[in-house]
C-alpha cells in the first residue's frame, strides 16, 4: 500500500508534535518528510526511528535545518558549514534544498538535493553516528526540482509508531465533549 504525500506530511507533523516539538518545528518536520518522500526516500520510517531514539549527543536535524534557513542571509554559493554531530543528517536535505540546493556529507558519504534518494541505501552511520556533518551550498538559484514520485512508502512498524505519537495530540473523550464538541445532535433522517 502506498500513501499520498499529503498523508505522510500530516502524519509526520502530528507525530512530531506528539513527540514534543512545538507546532512551528512540527510543520517543518512534516514538510521535510514530504520532500524526502517525494524523492523516493523512506523518510516517514526514518522519522519514526528518530523520534523513538533521540540521541542527546547529536543535534536535532530539524532544529539545525530550520536554523540554517533562518540564518541563510550570509550563505553564498560555495559556502561550507561545519555542523558538528547531527542525528539523521539526511533530514537536512530538504532545508538545503530550500536554500537553492547543495550537498550534505558525513565521513565519505555525500548526498545531494538533486539525487534520486530512493536508490540510496542510507547507511546506518548516517542515522546513529556521532561524527560531524558538513553542508556545502551550491546556491543554484533554481526552483526546487519537482518530486520524482507522488507516493510515499511507510512500513507497518513506522505507521504504528507515528500513529501512536500522533495520538498524543488527540484529546481523550469526555461526556461533555461527546455531547457538545461537534455541535450536532439533531436528527438527520429528514
Amino acid at each position, binding site marked *: *500500500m502506498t500513501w499520498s504525500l*499529503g498523508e505522510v506530511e500530516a502524519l509526520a507533523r502530528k507525530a512530531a508534535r506528539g513527540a514534543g516539538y512545538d507546532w512551528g518545528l512540527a510543520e517543518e518536520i512534516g514538510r521535510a518528510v514530504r520532500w524526502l518522500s517525494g524523492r523516493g526516500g523512506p523518510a516517514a520510517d526514518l522519522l519514526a526511528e528518530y523520534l523513538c531514539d533521540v540521541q542527546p549527543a547529536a543535534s536535532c536535524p530539524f532544529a539545525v535545518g530550520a536554523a540554517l534557513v533562518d*540564518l541563510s*542571509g550570509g550563505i553564498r554559493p560555495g559556502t561550507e558549514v561545519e555542523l558538528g554531530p547531527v542525528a539523521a543528517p539526511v533530514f537536512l536535505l530538504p532545508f538545503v534544498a530550500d536554500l537553492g540546493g547543495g550537498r550534505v556529507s558525513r565521513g565519505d558519504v555525500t548526498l545531494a538535493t538533486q539525487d534520486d534518494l530512493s536508490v540510496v541505501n542510507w547507511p546506518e552511520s548516517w542515522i546513529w553516528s556521532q561524527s560531524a556533518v558538513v553542508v556545502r551550498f551550491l546556491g543554484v538559484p533554481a526552483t526546487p526540482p519537482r518530486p520524482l514520485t507522488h507516493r510515499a512508502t511507510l512500513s507497518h512498524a513506522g505507521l504504528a509508531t507515528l500513529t501512536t505519537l500522533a495520538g498524543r495530540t488527540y484529546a481523550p473523550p469526555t461526556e*461533555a465533549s461527546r455531547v457538545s464538541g461537534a*455541535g*450536532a*445532535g439533531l436528527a*438527520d433522517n*429528514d
Partner: protein
Amino acid sequence: MKDLPPEIAPRDPAVVMRLARLGASHQHRLSFLRILLRRAKADRWRYERRVFEIDTAGVGHAVLTMHTPDRAYSLVAFSHDLPADQRSDRVIATAWDATFALFDGIPDAADIDRLARNIPLQEAGRVGERELSVSRANRSVRLWDHVVDCLAKGEQPEEAKLAEVGYLMRTTAVYGSGKLGAADREVTCDRPEFLPPFQIEMLTVWLIRTFVMDLVEHMAAARSVTAVRLDPVLRRRFGIGNSTGLGMAPFLINHPVLLNNWIGAREEALARVRRLPDATPQDVARFRSLVHRARHNLDLWRTSHPVQVSRIGALRADFDLLVTHLSEAALDQVAPWNRLWLWAEGALSVEGQEALAALMMEPYGDLIDGMACCMSADEGGAFRIDGDMTIGALRAALRQVYGWAIDIDWADPARQARVWYTSAEKLEPRLGDRFAEPLAAYEQPLSPGREAARLFADLDGQPEDATTADLLQAHPEHRHTVRRLQVAARYPYAELRDNTIDAAMLPIDLLRAKLAFFGAQHFDPRSDRWVRITLFGGAPFPDELAQMDPDDWTYPA
C-alpha cells in the same frame, strides 16, 4: 472622459476579514462551481453515462464520465440500501445511501472491483493515485419518498415540497487532495481544468447530482411501469445538499495564502466594477433584473436557525431599500457602481452589502472571470521564514495585522473561552470549553490572535535591530506564529481579523465563508457549528450545458 472616479482600492482587510462579514458571504461569479461550469461549456466537455447497473431495490453501481478535450474523468457511484436508523449526516457515520469516487480516466473492471471493496467503507477503505476524490451522500428521506411516489403514479412532485428541501441527497464529506490515499493536488494541479481551487470536488458534486436524479427516476420506474420522468425544468431545480460541520472550519486558518487569493480575487473584482466610469443600458438592465431575481431567491431560502432567520429578515429589508434606491437614483451618472456601493455601505446590513457585491459582479464576466486562474495557491512557497527581518519590522507587522488582538484583554476568560482540538475518538476537529474541560494540553494552533499577542509581549525590551533568527533561537515556540505573521504581512487577506477562541465566536461564519466560495446557496445553520447548504440548484446538467448559459441560473428566473 471627465470626472473619472479616483483610484478605488480593494476593500480594507480590517473590514473584509471580520468573521461576521465573512459569515455573510454569498456565491458570486468567482465561486468554484461557476468556474467549473464556464470551463465545461467553453471547452465543450462531453458527458457519457457508461454504466448504470442498479437493481429494483436501488443497489448497484454506475459510471458517469465527463470527456474534456484531453482527458476523461469518471464518477464511480455505489448505491446502497441503507436502513433508516443508520442515516446520519455526521462525518463519523459508517454507512450511507450512496458512496462515490472520482476516477482519473475511465475505470476498467478491475478498477471497479477494487473501488467496490473500498469506496463503500469511506474512511475505513483505501484508494490510490487514480482516485481524485472520495465522497458519500444520504437521502433527504421526506423528499425522496415524495418524488418516487409521485413519479411512480405518473405525476410530478409538488413544487412546494421541493422548495422546502431543495435536494434529494446531501453529501456529508467530499475528500480530495490526497485524503484516504487519493492523488495529491500536485498530481493534477498542472491540468488547466484543475488549476482553480476545488475543481475536482465541484466536478464530483455536479456528477453526483446527475447520478441522484437518474437514480430517483430509476426507482420510480422500478415501482411502476407507468412511471414518468421528471419535467426537465423542475428537475433542474434540484441541487445537491451538503452538511458541513466543524471539520471544515480550520481549513481557512490553515491555508492563509489560499484564503488571501480567494478573497483578494473577489475584492479586486468588486473594485474593478466600482472603477467603471459608466454602465451600458444593457448592463444596467441585467443588474436590475438580477436584483429582482435575487429578492425572489430569498423566498426559497429556508432556515429555522434564529440568527439566520433574523439575517434573512434584514436582507429582505435591504432588498426593499435597494429597489427603492434604484428607482430613485439612476445608474447613468458617472461612476454609477461606486456611487451605489458607497450608498450601500451606509444603508444596508452586512448581509445586504455582501449580497450586493456579488450582484454587481454579475454583468461583468469579461472584466472578472479571468481572475479564476489566480485563486489557487502554493502554501509551500510562503513557508520559509525570513530570518533577517528585524524585530522592529516584526513589531510593526504585528501592530498592522494583529493590532486588534494586541488590544484584547486576554486575562478575561471569555476572550479565550474555547479550545480547538482533535478528538481521539473520532479524529475530527472539535471545539471545547477551556475552563470546563481538560483540553488545553491538546490545543491546535488555531488561535492566531492570541498567539500574536503572546509574541508581541515577548518582543518587549528586545532591540529593534535584532533579527527574527535571533528571536527564534531564544523562543522556538513562536516559530509557527512568526511564519504566519510574515505571510499575513505580505498577503493582505491571509488573516482573519477576529478572535477564533472567543466565547462569542460562531464557527458557522468560517464554514459559510468557505462554502460561499464553493458556490453554496441557502445556508441553513443547524447549530452554531453545523450548516446545511445547497449546491448546483438550478444549474444545467452535464448533458444540457451545451444549450444553456453556464452562469445565468444562480438567481432563479
